[in-house]
């Protein structure tokens, strides 16, 4: 009987895709379930990915003229009632705050104080169209105040019954853009522009191909006139909605009295849009690139980068190692290796000079003994990288790297780590 090659992640994708996903998240140390059902703890490795996503997206928003602001977590319940379709869409998953104080319940525990009941319950934002719209109504008086282009980085809560880490959680982190325009054409243009920004980000930075499209009536954002989305296909042939951009028409403007004096002096309702992406992108990232050996990240989003340099005792050993590194390059390319990484791999195969340089933020991996297996698989190289990451987290070396903690011990016997200057690697 042929022995099955062992994979770092059990089960494999073919065996049980949803479980494989959970195991990748666990093995890469990205997040864990919390004591609150449906909520996750985003651990440092996972949060670092989110920070990189934020950094890039934020720059793209600024470049398209948007500014950041922050609005309250709580929304008065009456605000939600103003837009009928909107309330219908979100009411069934709203968290509600009804009291503002706890008091002893007489049995050694606590209970909400009956005297501290709120006159009007507050809901925890599932999205902020209503409260931001009410604010915008105060900001907008004349056509000179328009357009308003605001983005907010925040958390939102949607009481989901079936949750999965990053893909669907009760509380999640996201950004929501909200804009107000003087006319329909401009608002529609904004909606499409932000969809393009999302698509560019998904494909350019996350290396995740997406289809840009418009939603049908049934799948539209509650209260929107038109909803556009970017849809990505995952390895299990299921689609993932990775970002949405909504043209809200005058629906929200009418509900919240966002009116302005036009150039000719007439009072008109404004046109609004909203758009958002969330930590769900990380779920998409995992499912797009990872394999049965664990997490694979595109270099622009990866929290740490590493270069591995084999160093040889003699020519015989070099010949062997070069062969194996070249083979490894093949597996790297399957993991979407870019031109710069390819160049890097050649550097790895040839540069011995780097060994001589002093300390720095890069790394040299030394083949201490001949590997037990004939080839160095991508996993092996990856594991070495992970080991290095544990020792030096702040590197700016360009390459694709992947944390896989459970492998550190297994491969530490085969590598020793020597720091070196990035300059010596000609990166």
């Amino acid at each position, binding site marked *: 009987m042929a022995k099955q090659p062992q994979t770092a992640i059990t089960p494999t994708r073919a065996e049980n895709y949803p479980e494989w996903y959970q195991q990748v998240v666990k093995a890469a140390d990205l997040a864990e379930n919390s004591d609150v059902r449906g909520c996750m703890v985003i651990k440092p490795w996972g949060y670092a990915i989110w920070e990189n996503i934020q950094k890039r997206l934020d720059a793209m928003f600024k470049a398209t003229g948007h500014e950041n602001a922050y609005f309250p977590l709580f929304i008065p319940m009456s605000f939600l009632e103003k837009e009928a379709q909107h309330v219908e869409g979100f009411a069934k998953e709203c968290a509600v705050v009804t009291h503002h104080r706890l008091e002893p319940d007489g049995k050694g525990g606590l209970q909400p104080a009956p005297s501290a009941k709120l006159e009007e319950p507050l809901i925890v934002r599932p999205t902020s169209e209503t409260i931001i719209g009410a604010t915008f109504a105060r900001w907008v008086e004349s056509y000179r105040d328009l357009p308003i282009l605001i983005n907010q980085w925040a958390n939102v809560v949607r009481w989901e019954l079936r949750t*999965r880490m990053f893909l*669907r959680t009760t509380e999640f982190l996201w950004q929501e853009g909200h804009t107000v325009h003087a006319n329909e054409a401009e608002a529609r243009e904004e909606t499409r522009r932000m969809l393009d920004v999302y698509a560019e980000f998904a494909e350019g930075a996350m290396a995740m191909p997406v289809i*840009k499209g418009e939603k049908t009536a*049934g799948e539209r954002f509650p209260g929107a006139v038109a909803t556009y*989305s970017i*849809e990505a*296909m995952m390895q299990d*042939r299921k689609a993932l*909605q990775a970002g949405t951009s909504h043209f809200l028409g005058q629906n929200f403007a009418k509900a919240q009295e966002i009116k302005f004096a036009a150039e000719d002096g007439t009072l008109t309702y404004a046109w609004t849009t909203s758009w958002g992406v969330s930590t769900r992108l990380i779920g998409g990232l995992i499912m797009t690139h990872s394999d049965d050996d664990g997490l694979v990240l595109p270099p622009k989003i990866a929290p740490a980068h590493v270069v591995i340099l084999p160093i040889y005792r003699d020519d015989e050993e070099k010949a062997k190692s070069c062969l194996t590194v070249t083979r490894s390059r093949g597996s790297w390319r399957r993991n979407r290796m870019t031109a710069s990484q390819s160049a890097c791999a050649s550097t790895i195969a040839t540069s011995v000079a780097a060994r001589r340089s002093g300390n720095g933020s890069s790394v040299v991996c030394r083949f201490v003994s001949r590997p037990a297996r004939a080839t160095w698989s991508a996993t092996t190289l990856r594991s070495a990288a992970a080991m290095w990451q544990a020792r030096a987290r702040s590197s700016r070396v360009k390459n694709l790297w992947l944390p896989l903690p459970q492998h550190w011990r297994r491969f530490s016997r085969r590598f020793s780590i020597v720091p070196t200057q990035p300059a010596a690697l000609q990166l």
Partner: protein
Amino acid sequence: VKIESLKEFEEFFGKDDESTTKGGLAYCRFVDSPTMDEKLKSLKATVRCVPLDAQDEPGKCIFTGQPSAKRGVFARAY
């Protein structure tokens, strides 16, 4: 995958809903209708979107037979 008939569509998504070998993105002409919603529900698929860069292709809705020029992307979704 472009799909032109309801039979093909059903085959594409298969009966086994947790299978990773069935399904994918199906490009089909459609008209938004209750008939379609019901069919989709039974296959656990949804209309993901109507691609923006698509060109009009006159033809028939695979669910109702009504004339339809637009293709939607159908898939199971997260």
